């Protein structure tokens, strides 16, 4: 294949992947009238900041509330989720004990069970204890990330040498302290990867909040925008807020990925290593 052909494939692909995002950017910066009657790919009057101001003020600032909820569900959820996955994966990699393989296989089976198949039974269980439509009903199930355990185990086996752990023991460091100081540092690329991908999974989660939550003020931003979008036919002016809201909601993730790329790009490959 020639160099030109290769570059053409790359450039056409770039247009395919970036043009929709570009459209969202230009559309989010237009006034309501211009959204309907100007070309979607060029800027109208640059009204982005006024639009964002209106979005944040609409309906007593419910949008900001949704963003905050998403940050809390995804940020705190992924942080705690990463720590517990890492501890479990590390223990499975670095200690010998009866039942180790059994536990690992059960966790691996968990990777293959679709999370959405759990949404309805989770709803039934939470309604048994009267806890649906609460923050915890979405937050707690999101903490469990079997793939994180799998990644942590593989990475810990490969990158935390037993000799180092022995040396730490001889120096009198307890097992838990060794994990949180020595092992944590060596596992950093894997930990950032687990954190980011769990963050994305929770941020994108739709079925669980859809089925659990009734109270608008508990919605994550995806569910909030979904409900707005399904009201567009009744309340046409809400369309502008859907577009601007969609644009604002992807900015945090894009920034997170770009700023942390050197970590997750090295960690990403480790999942498929044999």
């Amino acid at each position: 294949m020639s160099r030109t052909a290769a570059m053409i494939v790359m450039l056409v692909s770039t247009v395919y992947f970036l043009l929709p995002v570009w459209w969202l950017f230009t559309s989010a910066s237009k006034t309501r009238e211009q959204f309907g009657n100007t070309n979607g790919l060029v800027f109208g009057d640059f009204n982005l900041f006024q639009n964002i101001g209106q979005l944040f003020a609409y309906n007593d600032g419910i949008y900001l509330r949704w963003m905050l909820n998403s940050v809390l569900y995804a940020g705190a959820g992924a942080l705690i989720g990463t720590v517990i996955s890492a501890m479990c994966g590390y223990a499975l990699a670095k200690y010998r004990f009866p039942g180790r393989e059994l536990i690992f296989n059960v966790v691996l089976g968990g990777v293959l069970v679709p999370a959405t198949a759990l949404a309805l039974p989770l709803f039934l269980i939470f309604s048994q204890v009267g806890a649906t439509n609460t923050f915890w009903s979405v937050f707690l199930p999101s903490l469990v990330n079997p793939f994180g355990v799998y990644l942590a185990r593989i990475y810990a086996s490969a990158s935390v040498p037993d000799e180092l752990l022995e040396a730490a023991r001889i120096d009198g460091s307890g097992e838990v302290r060794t994990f949180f100081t020595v092992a944590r540092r060596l596992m950093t690329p894997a930990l950032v990867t687990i954190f980011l991908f769990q963050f994305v999974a929770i941020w994108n989660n739709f079925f669980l909040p859809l089925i659990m939550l009734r109270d608008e003020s508990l919605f994550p931003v995806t569910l909030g925008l979904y409900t707005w979008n399904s009201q567009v036919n009744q309340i046409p002016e809400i369309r502008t807020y859907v577009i601007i809201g969609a644009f604002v909601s992807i900015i945090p993730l894009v920034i997170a990925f770009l700023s942390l790329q050197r970590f997750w790009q090295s960690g990403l490959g480790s999942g498929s290593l044999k």
Partner: protein
Amino acid sequence: MTTAELAESRPVLKPAKPARSARPLVKHKRAILLFLAPFGVLFALFYLLPIGYAVYQSLLVVQRDGTFGPPVEVFGGLTQYVAVFQNEAFWASVGRVLLFGVVQVPVMLGFALVLALLLDSPLVKGKKFFRLAYFVPYAVPGVIAAIMWGYLYSPNLSPFTALTGSFEFLSPQFVLWAIANVVTWVYVGYNMLIIYSSLLAIPSEIYEAAKLDGASQLQIALRIKIPLVVPAITLTAIFSIIGTLQLLAEPQVFRSFTSSVSSTFTPNMAVYATSAVPNVNLAAAMSVVLALATFAMSFAFLKFTQRKADA
């Protein structure tokens, strides 16, 4: 302190008698428990328990004493599963996602593989930019991606009205592929990066011999690189299969753009619609069937590729 005192203050090292118990000695028991417990408890509560509870619920039926009696849940054996197997809407939805998966997963992974191989070849400049550009859609949640594409497909609001005005992307015949495009758009970059990082891990000496023998880039890609990244492709394929059967957000969003998407368009939408009826026991049975089918398919795929690799 003299040396004699120092020696005395030290515990005398005796040759330890090996403890001959029935079970092998586990060192650091408490630490292991502490490491495993948090994940273990949450996994049991929010993974295993729901699976068990769904199975339990799926074995119940609601009966009434006469026409106006209060509803009571009684054990109904496999009644709900019989109902699932007779539920045409559910099977139509399963058929739809299978058709979707058979076409979309190979197209998406093929696309991802081509981009990864190009990125890994010496033919392309500006690798860093392309890598990030392709990955950007992954940062867009499925719901948001579906909203964006919903407008891009729209006959009057799209920037491509010349195309969307004459061709109805959201018509009943085509809407499944309109959704496939949204899913492809989001996940190609992610899958490409998994394959690409696995390509980067191949030591370059492997190619040197092939180059000396006059192999072209295409031959190197087909004969050397692709076989070596099969584990990565397997991983992406399994996640794609799981994702396909779980399809929910994109079609659910498209319901506000078009009437071509029914309330039971995908299995998960059927579960949601059935539980809202409410017919919780039937919905639970559907969830169990769906989970088993997903598990079986990804497991079978894993075993199949492993056997091929061993052969």
